[in-house]
């Protein structure tokens, strides 16, 4: 009973469809279904616009999608440069993926998969490895000059290199923890307020319940901002390894 009343209780996952492949547990749970629903919504929105061919004079939905794509395009060009358009599809998908996962979790009874550190961590590691591959394939051995900031005296290099390595390794950690922590914190605050609202007497219970509405609005903004931050930092990291310094 005590566990059920915990504000972290709703982060627990239970298999809905059991799938075991070899020694791996690939069961479908609530988080995965919520993620798929979010993805279907994103894909569906694009398909509604693209079904009959995008119109020259855009409607509201098309305008919104055009604006978001223009926004991502601008971000890619700003942080990566003209070469960045190669990564547009990846960055765009990443933005919409995180955004839909963040937003779908705000529906009561749903689940935010980005509140799982293992998921955000996986994406952060994939991005980190991808940046290393891009950097090495583009610059070869010269890529490791990224560990020596420009203008550093030679005598400082033995000190700077370990610092830069730590800084590089901290990137995926900060990237994943930031998104995970924001999503978890938001949902925990909502759960606490909702729990308070339900458990408190009626004359005072409306207050925390009212706050859940305000916090929910705030969470929508946070969901968008966190998707933006995650995507922007991805662009910055890719841009860094392309431009080096």
């Amino acid at each position: 009973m005590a566990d059920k009343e915990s504000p972290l209780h709703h982060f627990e996952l239970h298999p809905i469809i059991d799938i075991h492949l070899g020694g791996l547990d690939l069961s479908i749970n609530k988080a995965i279904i919520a993620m798929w629903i979010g993805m279907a919504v994103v894909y569906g929105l694009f398909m509604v616009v693209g079904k009959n061919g995008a119109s020259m004079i855009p409607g509201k939905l098309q305008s919104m999608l055009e604006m978001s794509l223009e926004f991502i395009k601008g971000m890619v060009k700003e942080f990566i440069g003209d070469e960045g358009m190669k990564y547009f599809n990846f960055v765009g998908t990443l933005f919409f993926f995180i955004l839909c996962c963040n937003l779908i979790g705000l529906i009561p009874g749903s689940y935010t998969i980005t509140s799982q550190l293992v998921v955000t961590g996986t994406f952060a590691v994939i991005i980190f490895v991808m940046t290393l591959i891009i950097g090495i394939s583009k610059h070869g051995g010269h890529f490791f000059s990224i560990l020596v900031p420009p203008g550093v005296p030679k005598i400082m290099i033995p000190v700077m290199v370990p610092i830069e390595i730590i800084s590089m390794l901290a990137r995926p950690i900060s990237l994943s923890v930031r998104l995970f922590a924001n999503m978890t914190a938001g949902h925990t605050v909502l759960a606490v307020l909702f729990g308070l609202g339900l458990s408190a007497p009626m004359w005072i219970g409306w207050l925390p319940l009212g706050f859940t509405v305000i916090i929910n609005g705030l969470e929508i903004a946070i969901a968008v901002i966190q998707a933006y931050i995650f995507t922007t930092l991805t662009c910055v990291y890719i841009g860094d390894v392309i431009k080096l310094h």
Partner: protein
Amino acid sequence: MPQFEQVSVFSSLIFWSVISFVALLFLLKKFAFPPILEILEVREKKIRDDIEGAANIKQEAEKLKVEFDLQLKTAHEKANDIVQLAHDASKKETEKALQDTQGKVRQMIKEAEHEIQVSRNKLLSEIRGYTAALTIASTERILKKTLDEKEHTRIVDETIEEVIRELEKKA
């Protein structure tokens, strides 16, 4: 925290999130992004072309305006010349007509004066004849005596001259 404690779900979360992301990447790249990006490019191109077209049309319009202004100025000058010519011609015609009329009027006055003079002379001659006969008859009757021819003529002439002077005075 369940996110750290439920290790058993990690594999499914990692697996399905990565697979789903790759699937979404494929779907968006293949079907969702291209129509929107294409229409954005088409619109951008259309707007750029329209702006360039508008700039060209504006340039042409300015050129035409300069030409029209020039033509208008020439037309104004021509019109002014035509009006001036018409005015001059009309003035000449008027002057000529006036001169002709004046000449005719002068001629008519001259003819009238001549006719008047002729009529006057004729009238005076007739009056002179009548007056002479009247005077002679009257004098003969009054004096009851016959005057000689020379005296007779002199008296008659004097009487006529007297009558004429009187007439002229009255006129």
